[in-house]
């Protein structure tokens, strides 16, 4: 496989205030190759969005602080790059689309102007060229009559059209990496299907690598090549998508997959995970953060924090149960080689 375009290594991002420290991201590592899709799943509050904002340098610092880790873009650490070079990468080589397109589009600017602005900024084109490019991009993302709709304001677009416009802006510079944070959560399923199809088509055309953040397990099954499962700020399992569904190794992943209802089968009971995820600001929990809800936890799970265990096939699980099978240990904060590659 091609060398990764993006590698995240032992990333930790905390929110530090006088009262408390929220360990929002506390150990996540993966490799992402060109043209591939990596899905990041996990409960609400598990650190998915904070991780994405760290890559783009969009976290408010303070209170946020990148405590440790590397974010290698084409081999160079974004966390050590001088600001001028960083600007050329972020929003240009690495672009992002957010869950709520209305809040990320400027309501007083015409949609076309906003796309053209991105084009002018990153590609040094003239205004006229930029407008033509904006129309072309709107056509590409499936907006009907793009030559007319280019002059509409965001509120004249429906939710699905706004999300298309956001994708058009993100794609205006043909980024190498596209981070999509819950891109379809606010949309109806028929519109979601259109947007996911669009992302797949454009990915083929531009060889874009996609990081797809979602809590929708069905969307993961449809879109992902590889998956990182997050719990309480950490990556607890990493695997190719087929393997993850066939043979989930972390008890949280098993619980998560079992609790999802499907239109294909009617289960008498869903297998719910009891209890609640921990409060990430309540101080360090001894042992594994999932132990309190884990159906197979042993005594040491409540006292010893599990390391990450590498498994065959580029997989990783952060569960003590893997040790019995002789899996190789790595520290959660250390650079991990081969995760999800």
């Amino acid at each position, binding site marked *: 496989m091609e060398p990764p375009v993006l590698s995240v290594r032992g990333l930790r991002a905390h929110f530090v205030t006088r009262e408390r420290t929220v360990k929002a991201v506390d150990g996540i590592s993966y490799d992402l190759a060109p043209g591939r899709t990596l899905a990041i799943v996990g*409960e*609400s509050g598990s650190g998915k969005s904070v991780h994405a904002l760290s890559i783009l340098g969009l976290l408010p610092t303070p209170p946020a602080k990148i405590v440790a880790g590397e974010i290698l873009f084409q081999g160079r650490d974004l966390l050590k790059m001088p600001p001028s070079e960083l600007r050329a990468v972020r929003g240009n080589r690495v672009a992002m689309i957010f869950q709520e397109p209305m809040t990320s589009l400027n309501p007083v600017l015409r949609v076309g102007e906003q796309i053209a602005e991105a084009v002018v900024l990153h590609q040094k084109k003239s205004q006229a060229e930029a407008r033509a490019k904006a129309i072309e991009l709107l056509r590409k993302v499936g907006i*009907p009559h793009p030559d007319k709709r280019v002059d509409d304001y965001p509120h004249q677009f*429906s*939710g*699905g*059209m706004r999300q298309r416009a956001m994708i058009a802006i993100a794609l205006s510079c043909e980024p190498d990496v596209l981070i999509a944070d819950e891109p379809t959560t606010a949309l*109806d*399923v*028929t*519109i*979601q*299907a*259109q947007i*996911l*199809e669009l992302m797949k088509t454009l990915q083929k055309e531009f060889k874009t690598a996609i990081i797809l953040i979602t*809590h*929708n*397990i*069905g*969307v*993961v*099954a*449809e879109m*992902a090549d590889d998956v990182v499962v997050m719990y309480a700020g950490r990556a607890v399992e990493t695997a190719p*998508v*087929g393997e993850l*569904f066939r043979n989930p190794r972390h008890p949280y992943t098993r*619980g*998560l*997959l079992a*609790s*999802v*209802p*499907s*239109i*294909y089968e*009617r*289960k008498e*009971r*869903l*297998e*719910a*995970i*009891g209890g*609640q995820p921990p409060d990430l600001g309540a101080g360090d929990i001894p042992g594994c953060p999932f132990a309190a809800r884990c159906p197979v936890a042993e005594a040491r799970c409540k006292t010893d924090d599990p390391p990450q265990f590498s498994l065959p096939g580029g997989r990783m699980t952060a569960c003590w149960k893997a040790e019995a099978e002789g899996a190789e240990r790595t520290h959660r904060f250390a650079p991990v080689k081969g995760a999800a590659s």
Partner: protein
Amino acid sequence: MSPTPILEVRGLKKHFAARSGLFEEKATVKAVDGVSFSVMPQESFAVVGESGCGKTTLGKLVLALERPTEGSILFEGRDVGAMSRAELKAMRSRLQVIFQDPYSSLDPRMTVAQIIAEPWDIHGLHKNPAERAKRLHKLLDDCGIAKSFLDRHPHEFSGGQRQRVGIARALALEPKLIVADEPVSALDVSIQAQVLNLLKDLQKEHQLAYLFISHDFSVVRHLCTRIAVMYLGRVVETADSETLFNDPQHPYTEALLSAVPVPDPAVEKRRKRILLSGDVPSPLKPPPGCRFHPRCRYAVDSCRVSDPALDEARPGHAAACAVLPFKDRRSDAALVAL
């Protein structure tokens, strides 16, 4: 003779005055535009459809929180529109609601005990403290709420816990029908499963009927035995749940089911998806003829002019389409090519 439905809705319409366009022309939103169905005692009946199709408005009409523009609602065989104030109050104790948003639907100044017991105060019930405590504890047990929560306030709880409190409150008056408007949409999947299991258990134990409003087919399949699919203020298909999932007859239902991502990569790889073009049209200007025709892959000329009625072509299975139902389909229309 068949038993009396707990809820019967006949030709129900709710139109709102609205303004639209540049010149603020007067317009009408036909939020609910001719809906009929009935729910039997202890049945879980789902209303499914995309955003803006009129589900919440329908729920509010059933709860008598909105007055219908046209049509009637019968609760246990009696016309709600003709009820006296006292009769309405009595009905409200037998008809309860669970809302989508567990954050805004509970009064933040009240304790959990006060929230759950408030309906008893309103209806002057169970005034004896010992009896009240006993009932309260039973509700907590049934809904999986720890006793230590009783004196705490809603903001101290997670979404799933708050939703349990909302459910306990809805059960306080021992209702026979619960209208649940997207009760698990705001919850994480692992918590959603807890609440869905709870709703299922409570239905058995308390002999409840549900009018379950949702945009999520997978949730509906798990909980409900009959389903009505709505599109732009109308019901376009009704059937029992298994029939609807295995043999949808309306082109919209077919496309909707094919658009739901399935949590199984092996299935997803083999699946054929029917992509609908365009957005859901505005209910301010529903298309003439069949409302679905601009997005329909089967539409013929007559669909542009004549509005199909909901036709019960097979017992218990009705669809509002002039072309597709119970005829041969295009071969590529199969939901999954297994």
